[in-house]
């Protein structure tokens, strides 16, 4: 449901500014939202470098945006308090890219029924339709799953839904705030006439005989086999979990058919990386001896190494047997290369081997940790269940734990806790500006079709609790005693998160629960560099920070020139800001108006001067002639 008119389009790479007014957590969430656009769509984002038009994200009241590129230079998009959810950011950016809400499509009455008497009085206009002279649905069917759809309760005056879907199955689907839907992506790529993606590289579920162009090595003991079932397990593949008769294939290394140390090598097709960092993700099943291992290599080609240089990236050992396991491997490849999977027979009797399925490769950052929850359905059905994750460490060394609250169904809550850890004495307390991102994985085989549920929180070192302690202080100081399942004692700090992470209905939808397994992906990043105040290097006592006393307005940037703080004002094709603080706005239109009006003013002035001078001359002339004439009675005078 897009705004008609090429003039409203942005370039495929959109210049943006994250203004200082934004909360630091929101800045991190916005950057994560950009990564989702880069994975699923052909849209990219780059810091503004003076382009005529750009999107300036700031914190004003509420969450809102303009629709389309308005060519106003600094185009505002507000991510206010409570708007720092990734799908909210994606929603507002879809507006900026040129999309209206889904239920305002001209054909919406075929798919939903608006119950007008349940709408807050005075809010009925929010359910208006854009007819097809101003909006284009891009030849895509109505999408109940769109991230641009109102929820069933939008603007309700009571408790009854204002929107009733004509297909009842979608009643609780509309209003999803998980991620871009497949159709959102399709529309966006159609609107911008492109299908490429910056960060997606490949997705393989082995359903096609060509096995995604992967090749068997000739320098190994046996080949990997494309099968749909192994007597010793797995009984079925991971993509379809045996739900589709005649499909459901995966690759299997039959380790019992080789001696200890025997291998099977499978190489991917050749890739040409663009970003220099990649995340390899796949599901692995071990039905062998439990000592089999999977080695991941990259084969990098260069002009002086046509065969490619093989580098071991990761050895995956002690693979839990008897179920599909999710693995992530971080790669850092900068040139033409292949990913290589080497199955290696371990010691001990083997009754099966290794199986691989649902490989995804993308130029994104891998999550730091995976919390694998088995037998989720049973846990979910246990009254008053609450789940704590195993302990993890952030890259900075902070120990943490995740708490999944299943005690307040139909809402599922999730919280991030710092806990006592091995590095506490060397760490900074209270814990400063670490952003914890918790993602409930939608286990769709294709990474591009996932709609994972993600929330982020950031540790604010100044946050205090009711008793005056710092919330993010050392858990050994402000935490409470707790015990790991093995009885080890530790201290757990306060939990910070949301009790409405996801609903019971939604967690049972899509592929959040697959094979009775749930995965929560965890990333804890230091985002203190995003903090506007701390991002400026703290001025040492001798040098005064000249810009600290200068506030540039309208997106102006303070710079120090010849030891003097000046504002560099933004400008565009036909507009500019000026003045000491960029407080004044100019535009060619204004200049023309000023030029024309001053020309007219000068002309009028000249005219007045001319008229006055003519009048004076004539009066003077008349006086002149009357003073020279003798006193002659004026009679009939005859000319002689």
């Amino acid at each position, binding site marked *: 449901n897009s705004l008609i008119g090429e003039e409203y389009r942005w370039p495929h790479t959109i210049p943006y500014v994250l203004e200082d007014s934004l909360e630091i957590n929101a800045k991190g969430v916005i950057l994560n939202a950009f990564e989702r656009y880069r994975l699923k769509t052909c849209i990219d984002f780059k810091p503004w470098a003076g382009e005529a038009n750009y999107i300036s994200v700031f914190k004003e*009241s509420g969450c809102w*945006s*303009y*629709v389309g590129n308005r060519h106003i230079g600094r185009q*505002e998009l507000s991510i206010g308090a409570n708007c720092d959810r990734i799908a909210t950011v994606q929603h*507002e950016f879809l507006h900026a890219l040129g999309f209206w809400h889904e239920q305002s499509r001209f054909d919406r009455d075929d798919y939903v029924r608006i119950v007008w008497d349940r709408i807050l009085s005075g809010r009925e206009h929010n359910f208006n339709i854009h007819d097809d002279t101003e909006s284009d649905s891009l030849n895509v069917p109505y999408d109940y799953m769109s991230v641009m759809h109102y929820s069933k309760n939008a603007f309700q005056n009571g408790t009854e839904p204002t929107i009733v879907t004509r297909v009842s199955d979608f009643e609780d689907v509309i209003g999803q705030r998980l991620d871009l839907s497949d159709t959102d992506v399709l529309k966006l790529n159609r609107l911008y006439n492109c299908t490429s993606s910056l960060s997606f590289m490949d997705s393989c579920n082995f359903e096609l005989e060509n096995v995604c162009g992967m090749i068997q090595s000739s320098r190994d003991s046996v080949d990997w086999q494309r099968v749909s079932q192994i007597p010793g397990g797995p009984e079925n593949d991971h993509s379809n979990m045996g739900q589709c008769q005649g499909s459901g294939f995966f690759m299997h290394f039959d380790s019992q058919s080789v001696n200890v140390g025997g291998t099977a090598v499978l190489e991917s097709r050749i890739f040409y990386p663009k970003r220099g960092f990649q995340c390899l993700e796949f599901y692995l099943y071990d039905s062998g001896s439990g000592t089999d291992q999977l080695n991941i290599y990259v084969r990098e080609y260069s002009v002086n190494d046509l065969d490619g240089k093989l580098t071991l990236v990761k050895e995956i050992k002690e693979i839990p047997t008897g179920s599909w396991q999710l693995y992530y491997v971080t790669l850092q490849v900068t040139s033409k290369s292949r990913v290589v999977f080497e199955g290696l027979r371990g010691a001990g009797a083997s009754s099966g081997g290794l199986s691989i399925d649902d490989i995804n490769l993308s130029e994104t950052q891998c999550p730091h940790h995976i919390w694998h929850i088995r037998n989720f359905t049973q846990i979910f059905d246990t009254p008053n269940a609450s789940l704590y994750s195993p302990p993890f460490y952030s890259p900075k060394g902070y120990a943490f734990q995740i708490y999944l609250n299943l005690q307040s169904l139909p809402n599922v809550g999730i919280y991030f806790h710092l806990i006592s850890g091995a590095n506490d004495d060397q760490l900074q307390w209270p814990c400063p500006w670490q952003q914890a991102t918790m993602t409930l994985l939608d286990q769709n085989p294709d990474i591009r079709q996932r709609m994972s549920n993600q929330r982020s929180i950031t540790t604010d070192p100044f946050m205090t609790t009711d008793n005056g302690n710092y919330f993010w202080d050392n858990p050994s100081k402000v935490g409470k005693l707790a015990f790991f399942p093995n009885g080890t004692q530790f201290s757990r700090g306060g939990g910070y*998160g*949301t009790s*409405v992470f996801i609903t019971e209905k939604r967690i049972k939808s899509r592929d959040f629960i697959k094979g009775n397994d749930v995965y929560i992906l965890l990333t804890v990043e230091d985002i203190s560099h995003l903090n506007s105040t701390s991002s400026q290097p703290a001025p040492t006592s001798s040098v005064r920070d000249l810009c600290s006393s200068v506030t540039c307005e309208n997106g102006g940037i303070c710079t120090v020139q010849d030891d003097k703080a000046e504002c560099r004002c933004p400008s565009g094709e036909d507009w500019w800001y000026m003045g000491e603080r960029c407080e004044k706005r100019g535009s060619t239109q204004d200049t023309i108006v000023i030029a024309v009006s001053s020309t007219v003013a000068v002309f009028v002035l000249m005219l007045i001067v001319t008229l006055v001078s003519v009048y004076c001359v004539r009066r003077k002339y008349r006086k002149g002639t009357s003073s020279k004439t003798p006193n002659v009675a004026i009679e009939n005078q005859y000319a002689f």
Partner: protein
Amino acid sequence: TPENFVKDIDAGIDQDIFDINEDLGLELFQGDIRLDRVQGR
């Protein structure tokens, strides 16, 4: 439960975009769209 002593970022209310804007009394087109002068006309 007390031993969890958890703090909610959104006060435990699952507010959609439009609820947030409504509570703030924002008069936005379709709940979260800002119109420029051309569109406003």
